[in-house]
């Protein structure tokens, strides 16, 4: 039986403009890289729950463009697009990402895949130009921000709950 890694992705905020997402997979890095960048595969996992993917294009070349669009039953259609900046298959992929309604707000995403003993650790580093853009990305309209990696606070909250 493989290890159940459901819900094991961790999100932290290393600084005002960054988001870091980390998760492990029981799969080789080469396969993860392929599934991450080949539209035939992307269609099978990308998107949020209840989305129907309407466009899925990924031109895996430096300078190549990508574009994903999906339709949500209540929120309508939305699209993301960008350009590949660096490719080091299967270890690293750097690409820009723009949420199309906010065309002037561009993030740079760095995917890294490190394989050891059949387990690949994936990190997705998202770098926004401003804290406002980063916060908008995380919290649809929620104003404010925080710099903490919330891990410490997490622990404190857990500790406080145990006391109750």
């Amino acid at each position, binding site marked *: 039986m493989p290890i159940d890694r*459901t819900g094991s992705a961790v999100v932290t905020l290393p600084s005002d403009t960054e988001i870091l997402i980390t998760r492990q997979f029981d799969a080789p890095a080469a*396969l993860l890289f392929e*599934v991450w960048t080949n539209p035939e595969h992307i269609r099978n996992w990308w998107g949020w729950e209840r989305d129907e993917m309407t466009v899925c294009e990924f031109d895996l070349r430096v300078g190549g463009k990508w574009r994903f669009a999906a339709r949500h039953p209540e929120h309508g259609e939305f699209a993301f697009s960008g350009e590949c900046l660096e490719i080091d298959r299967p270890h690293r992929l750097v690409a820009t990402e723009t949420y199309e309604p906010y065309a002037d707000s561009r993030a740079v995403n760095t995917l890294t895949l490190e394989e050891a003993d059949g387990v690949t650790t994936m990190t997705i580093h998202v770098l926004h130009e401003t804290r406002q853009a980063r916060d908008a990305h*995380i919290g649809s309209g929620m104003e404010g*921000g925080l*710099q903490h990696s*919330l891990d410490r606070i997490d622990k404190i909250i857990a500790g406080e709950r145990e006391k109750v």
Partner: protein
Amino acid sequence: MARAATTADAFNAVAEPRRRVILDVLTEGERTVSEIVTHLPVSQPQVSKHLKVLKEVGLVRSHSAGRQRLYRLEPLALKPIHDWLQDYERLWNERLDRLDGYLYEIQGKE
């Protein structure tokens, strides 16, 4: 975006970088104002002003111990912020769990 000098909720209170440093310092334990000041490039009156804001939104509490006033973190007041990030984390988990399931499926076929 312009922010009011005093803020009504934890989100605005932690938007100011120096107040985040203060919260970070307080995660280590109770501190006096003069101890907090050593971590910041600002004067004690300014730190006191930040502490006042943090107290108003319930992120920090103080009590006197002898001649000193000690400040401590109220971690449960950070819960709304924690939840805010939690929603985003949940979305990523849904997506990456699907990816995981898909990888398992296609590896099984080989």
